[in-house]
């Protein structure tokens, strides 16, 4: 007897009996008012989709303006400093995470079914995915204007963005601020640092350092994941004032 037949036989032997009095049971529930409670709850996918429309419009506007600026500056200047503009993209994502606290919505969101944690994760995910997708399009568009390979342009764009996101997330985790000013300063500082770096280390963008850039990219992705995870865990109990 082959496996398929064994499985078929087992299914026949172990078939669940037809439910008896199923209808009566549900009618009973209805009569006792137990089905009047909301049975349907949206899934995480639908929740994520609906959160998309609640991300601050200025975040999308800032992202679009910055991506256009990066493209424009790369078109006019094929030096290395346009790469230093990508940390500014992280401003949107970092400031957005403090929105619930800034507008005193955190306590309400915290006690809802999807909780503040899901709200913040959803926003970070949505803004992060849109910014990364936008950046990938920009990388593809600007690549012909540089003498570097596509993978090198990708690394030079992504590493500063991830570095700013990581340092901003660590700062926000340790010093949650309502204004997000600290994160904004961090993003501008990261941008300045990457703009100044080629002047201090002229060989930074040479091909032989590609391996270092790749390692930095992987490490930043890992650290960012760990940092966001810790941040979200710490949100389990927001510290409220008396």
């Amino acid at each position: 007897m082959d496996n398929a037949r064994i499985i078929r036989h087992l299914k026949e032997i172990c078939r669940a009996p037809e439910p008896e009095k199923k209808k009566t049971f549900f009618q009973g529930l209805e009569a006792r008012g137990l089905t009047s409670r909301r049975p349907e709850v949206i899934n995480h996918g639908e929740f994520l989709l609906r959160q998309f429309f609640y991300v601050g419009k200025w975040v999308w506007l800032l992202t679009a303006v910055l991506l256009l600026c990066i493209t424009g500056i790369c078109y006019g200047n094929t030096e290395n400093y346009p790469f230093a503009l990508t940390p500014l993209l992280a401003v949107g994502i970092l400031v957005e995470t403090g929105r619930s606290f800034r507008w005193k919505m955190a306590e309400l969101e915290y006690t809802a079914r999807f909780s503040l944690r899901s709200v913040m994760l959803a926003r970070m995910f949505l803004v992060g995915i849109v910014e990364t997708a936008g950046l990938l399009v920009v990388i593809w568009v600007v690549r012909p204007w540089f003498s570097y390979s596509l993978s090198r342009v990708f690394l030079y764009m992504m590493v500063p963005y991830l570095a700013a996101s990581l340092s901003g997330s660590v700062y926000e985790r340790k010093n949650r601020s309502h204004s997000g000013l600290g994160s904004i300063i961090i993003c501008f500082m990261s941008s300045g640092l990457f703009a100044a770096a080629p002047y201090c280390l002229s060989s930074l963008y040479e091909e032989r350092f590609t391996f270092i850039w790749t390692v930095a990219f992987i490490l930043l992705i890992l650290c960012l994941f760990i940092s966001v995870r810790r941040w979200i865990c710490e949100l389990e109990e927001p510290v409220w004032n008396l």
Partner: protein
Amino acid sequence: MELIADRITKQYKNKIAVDRMSFTLTKGVTGLLGANGAGKTTLMRLLCGILAPDSGSVSCDGMSVGTEEYRDILGYLPQDFGFYPEFSGKDFLLYMSAVKGLTKKDAIRKTQELIELVGLRDSAGKKVRTYSGGMRQRLGIAQALLNDPQILIMDEPTAGLDPQERIRFRNLISGLGQNIIVLLSTHIVSDLEHIADRLMIMKDGQLLWQGNRSAGGEDLEAFYISKIGEKR
């Protein structure tokens, strides 16, 4: 359904906000009385799972307060809450419906129902930032009821309401209290006089007294003052 608090304690640096409190809440309206700073808000946050107790536990029919299942049956009105600036009253309720997991169809139906219930039909489309304190409070009450809660916890719900709105609120809560657990905190005794089935009196983080409203007699204010005075 029972909401059980078992020897819960919460301390902030050198101040004990809630000190070994134990009680059981059942269907009906329970009024939590106490002066400002007595620890009412901290207790409510502990019951909602916003704060974790330093010791003790809070559970409802075996569910811990930190779970999604518990939050699904919870309605909460904080003492101080805000709104995203771009929201109209209706947008706010639709947003809260989404966070509470209501389907789009249910969200629209419940939003419409509650807007009518709290008397905001004419201003539902206006920005919340243009609302008066009382209107905001009514909107807060509406959001707490969006998910048909089995446990309704309201921190100073009558703050900012005018006398007419207070009466409407009392009627609403009296009706709700017949089927669900309602806990209201206030420092205004008259808010509870006509609607509370049970009372809890707090002072300096401690539960001074708990019992049936009827034990308070005709003059609830005098009863409250006598209980507060007993501790001195």
